[in-house]
C-alpha cells in the first residue's frame, strides 16, 4: 500500500506542478522509490488489500514499464494521468475483497476515460467516446451482477463465497462479463479495435498494454477460486470465449491496412490467449502462465504502441504502406519494432514465446489437447500479419514521400528499457516460476 500512497501523492502534486519541466524526472524517481518500497516489503497492512510475491514482482515490472512510458511521453498532462493510472493499478492488484476490487476497478476505468479525453481531432474523439460508452455499459453490467450477488445475502467485504445459489452464481458471471469488456474478450471487444487505433498511440500503449494486463492479473487473483469451484460450467464457457477471441482477433488483424488496427486486433487476440489461463485453472501452471504472459505482453505491447506513437508523430495513422523502407531510414527503430513483433508472434528467445508456450502447456496439462492445438495454430496464423509488417519494413523499398518521423533519443531509451524486458524474460524464466500468487 505504501507504493500506492507515494504514487497517489505524486499524482495529486503533479496536478499542480505539471507545467514544470522536472515532472518527468520526479516521476521516474518516485517510480523507482515505489519499486524499492515494494521490494523491501515496506507495506502498511490495510484491511481488504493483500499482496503476494507474484503481485510484488508484477508491480515492480509495471513500474518499469510505466517509467518507459513516461520517458517517451511529451505531454505533461498525460504523465499526470499515467501516474493516476499507476496508483489505481497498484490498488487494483492488491485488492483482496470484492468491494475493494470493484472500487479500484472503477477508479481505474474512470481515470482511463480521463486519459483518453485529451483529444486533438475528431478521430480521437470517436475513439474516446466509444471507450466511454462501452466502459459505462461495463460498469452497469458489473453493478447488475453485484446486486444479484448481494441479494442472496453475501458480503462484499470478503472473497467470493464458495457456497452460493445459482442466482448468485449468475450474478458473478455477469460481473465477469462486465470485466471482460475491459479485457476485450469477444463479443465485448468491438470498442477496443477502434479506440486503440484512433487515440494517440502513447495512450493506447497505456490502455492496451498496461491497464489490460493489470485487470487480467487482478481478475485472476480475485476470480480464480470462483472459477475453480464451478469448473464444470466455467471451463467450456471460458474455453469457447478464449477460442473465439483469439481466432477472431487474428483473422480480423489479417485484413487490416493500418498498423494501429493490426496492433489493436493483435491485442484482442492476446486477451484470448490470456483467458486460457482461466480455462486451465486446474493446472498448477495456470497462475505462472498467466503471470508470464502478462509480463511478456506488457513489455511488448507497450513498446510497439510507443514506437508507433513516435514514428507517426503522435497521430497513429500509419498504414502499412507508410512503413515501406523504414529499414533504410531508421535502423534502430526497425530492429526494435521487428523484435517486439516477433515476440508478439511467439518466436523463441523472446518473452512472448515463453508466455505463450507455458500457457499452452497449462492447457495441455488439463488434457484439453484440441484447445491447445487450436491455440498453437492461431499463433502460427498470427505470424502471417506480424511477418507481413516486417516484410514492409525490411523487404520493400520506400516509395515517394512518406510521413515517418524520426525516433528521438529519449524515446529510444524508453524502447531499450522495454526491449530488455522482452529479451530478459525470453531467456530467464526462473524469476516468474519461483513466485506464487
Amino acid at each position, binding site marked *: 500500500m505504501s507504493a500506492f500512497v507515494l504514487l497517489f501523492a505524486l499524482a495529486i502534486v503533479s496536478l499542480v506542478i505539471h507545467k514544470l519541466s522536472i515532472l518527468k524526472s520526479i516521476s521516474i524517481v518516485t517510480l523507482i522509490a515505489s519499486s524499492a518500497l515494494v521490494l523491501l516489503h515496506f507495506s502498511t497492512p490495510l484491511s481488504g488489500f493483500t499482496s503476494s510475491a507474484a503481485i510484488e514482482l508484477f508491480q515492480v515490472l509495471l513500474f518499469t514499464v510505466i517509467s518507459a512510458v513516461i520517458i517517451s511521453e511529451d505531454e505533461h498532462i498525460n504523465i499526470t494521468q499515467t501516474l493516476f493510472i499507476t496508483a489505481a493499478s497498484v490498488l487494483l492488484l492488491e485488492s483482496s475483497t470484492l468491494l475493494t476490487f470493484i472500487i479500484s476497478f472503477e477508479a481505474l476505468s474512470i481515470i482511463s476515460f480521463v486519459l483518453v479525453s485529451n483529444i486533438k481531432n475528431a478521430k480521437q474523439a470517436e475513439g474516446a467516446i466509444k471507450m466511454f460508452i462501452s466502459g459505462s455499459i461495463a460498469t452497469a453490467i458489473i453493478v447488475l451482477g453485484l446486486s444479484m450477488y448481494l441479494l442472496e445475502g453475501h458480503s462484499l467485504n470478503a472473497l467470493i463465497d464458495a457456497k452460493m445459489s445459482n442466482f448468485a452464481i449468475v450474478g458473478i458471471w455477469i460481473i465477469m462479463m462486465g470485466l471482460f469488456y475491459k479485457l476485450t474478450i469477444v463479443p465485448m471487444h468491438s470498442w477496443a479495435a477502434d479506440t486503440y487505433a484512433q487515440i494517440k498511440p502513447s495512450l493506447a500503449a497505456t490502455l492496451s498494454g498496461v491497464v489490460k494486463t493489470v485487470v487480467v492479473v487482478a481478475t485472476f487473483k480475485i476470480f480464480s477460486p470462483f472459477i475453480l469451484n464451478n469448473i464444470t460450467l466455467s471451463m467450456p464457457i471460458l474455453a469457447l470465449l478464449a477460442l473465439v477471441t483469439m481466432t477472431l482477433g487474428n483473422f480480423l488483424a489479417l485484413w487490416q491496412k493500418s498498423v494501429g488496427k493490426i496492433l489493436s486486433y493483435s491485442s484482442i487476440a492476446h486477451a484470448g490467449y490470456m483467458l486460457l489461463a482461466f480455462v486451465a485453472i486446474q493446472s498448477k501452471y495456470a497462475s505462472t502462465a498467466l503471470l508470464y504472459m502478462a509480463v511478456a505482453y506488457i513489455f511488448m505491447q507497450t513498446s510497439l504502441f510507443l514506437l508507433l506513437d513516435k514514428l507517426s508523430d503522435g497521430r497513429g495513422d500509419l498504414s502499412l504502406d507508410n512503413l515501406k523502407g523504414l529499414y533504410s531510414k531508421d535502423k534502430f527503430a526497425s530492429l526494435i519494432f521487428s523484435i517486439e513483433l516477433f515476440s508478439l508472434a511467439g*518466436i523463441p528467445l523472446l518473452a512472448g514465446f515463453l508466455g505463450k*508456450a507455458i500457457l*499452452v502447456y497449462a492447457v495441455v496439462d488439463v488434457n484439453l489437447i484440441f484447445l*491447445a492445438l487450436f491455440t498453437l495454430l492461431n499463433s502460427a496464423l498470427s505470424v502471417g500479419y506480424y511477418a507481413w509488417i516486417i516484410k514492409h519494413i525490411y*523487404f520493400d523499398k520506400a516509395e515517394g514521400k512518406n510521413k515517418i518521423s524520426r525516433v528521438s533519443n529519449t524515446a529510444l531509451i524508453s524502447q531499450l528499457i522495454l526491449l530488455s524486458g522482452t529479451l530478459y524474460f525470453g*531467456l530467464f524464466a526462473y524469476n516468474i516460476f519461483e513466485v506464487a500468487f
Partner: protein
Amino acid sequence: MSYLSLIFAPIILSIFIYFFTKQTNNAKYIALALFTFMLYMSINIYMHLPETGYLLLSSFLHVEAFDFNLVLQVDRLSVIMLILTSVLLILVGLSSWSIEKQSAYFSLLIFFCGAIFGVFMSTNLMWFFIFWELTLIPMYFLIGIWGAEGRIYAAVKFFLYTHVASMLILLSFFLIYKQSGTFDMTLIKSGVLTTPALIWWLLFIGFSVKMPLFPFHTWLPDAHVQAPAPISVLLAGVLLKMGAYAMIRMLILILPLQAQKYAWAILLLGLISLLYAGFMALYETHLKKMVAYSSISHMGLVAIGISTLSYDGLSAGVYEMIGHAFIISPLFLIAGFLHHKTGSWQMRDMGGIMQRVPYISAIFVLAGLGALGLPGTMGFIGELSILLSAIGKYGVWLIVILLGSMLSAAYLIWTFRRVIYGEMSEVVKITDFKMPKAEFLSLIIFSIFIILFGIYPQALFDIINQAFSAYATSGGAL
C-alpha cells in the same frame, strides 16, 4: 559455460557486426573466421566424445518447475551434424563473397550459425524447439531481402509453412513432458508415455515438413528458387538436415516401438517423394527448380534409409545426408551463377556453356553425375547402401528405388544436353561469365569432397557407424 558461448556468442555478436561493420565491409572476414573456429570446436568436441552415449558439455538456466534447462549434450550423430554444418557455413561464406549489403548478410549468417549449433547441441526438448524456431528468423530475412523476383512470397510462405509444422512439434513435446515429466530427450522412457502413437504422428508430420517429404514439400521449391544461391545451399545442406536429424533422434531413438509400427509411413512418403520429385524434375525447364526437385528426391532417399530402422540403413541415411549436402550445393551455386549472369532461369536460354566456362561446367557435370549416382562419387555410395539396406529389410520389391535413380539420370543428362553442351544460345554468346575467385574456390572444395568420399567412403562410414553402434548392439530395438 564455455560451450554455451558457441551458441550465444554468435547470436549476440551478430547484432554488433550488423551495426559496426557497415562502412568497412569486414563482416565476411569475421564470419569466415568464426565459422572456421566453430569447425575447430566441433572437431575438438568430436575428439573428446566417449565411446557410446552423450558427452555433457554444460547445463544452464535451470527452472525446476518446468524442467526448462538448457542442457548441452552431444553424441556422435550431433557432432557429425555440427561438423557438416560448419563446413557448409564456411563454403557458403566463401560463395557469398561479393554479395550486396554484406554487414547485414553476414550478421544474419552468424546468427543462423548460433541457432543451428543450438539445435544440434541441446538435448532439452524446449531448448531444442527454441533453437529450431530461431533458425527461421535469419532465413526469413536472407530469402526476403537477397532473394529473386518472387522473394517476398517465398519468404513468407517458408516462414508460415514451417512455423505451422513447428506448432505440431511443440504440442507433441508438451505431451511428452506431461506424460513423462521430463523434457530431456536422453531421459525420456517411451514406456511411460500414454499416447505414444499421437506423439509419434505429430512429430512425424512436423519433421516431414522440414525434411521435406511429399505432400508437405510445397514450400521448398519456392524457397529454393527465390533464395540467393548460397542460401539455397544452406537450406538444402543444413535446414533439411535438421528434419532428418530430428527424425532419427526422436522418432527412431526415443520412440523405437512406434517407429517399428509406423516405419511404413516413412518408407511410403520417402518413396513417393523420391519418384514424384524425380518426375517433377524431369518436367521442369526452370534450372534451379529442377535442382530443387532433385534435392527433394534425394531427401526421399534419406527417408527410405531411415525407415529401415537398421544399423546399416541409418548409417546409409546419414551418409546420404552428407552426400546430398555436398552434391546438391554446387548445382545450386552454379544454377544461381548462371542466372546471375544470363538473367534467365530457363534452360532454353542456356546451352553451350561448356565452351565459355569449361571449369565451372565440369564441376556442374561432376555434381550432376554425383546426383545420378555414378560410381566414384558420393551419390553412388549413398544410393547403393540405402538400396541394399532397404532390400534387406523390406524385400526385393524395393528395387523400385532404382527407378528414382533412372529418373535422376534422365533429368540430369537431359539438363547437361540442354544447358552445358548443345548449341550456344544467343544469350550465352553475349554474356560475360566471370566468377569471383572465392566462389570458385568453394566449388572446387565441394567437388573434392564429392570425389574423395566417393572413392574412400570408409572414412565417413567409420565415423557414422559409431553413432549407431549402441543401436546395433541392442538389436535395433532399444
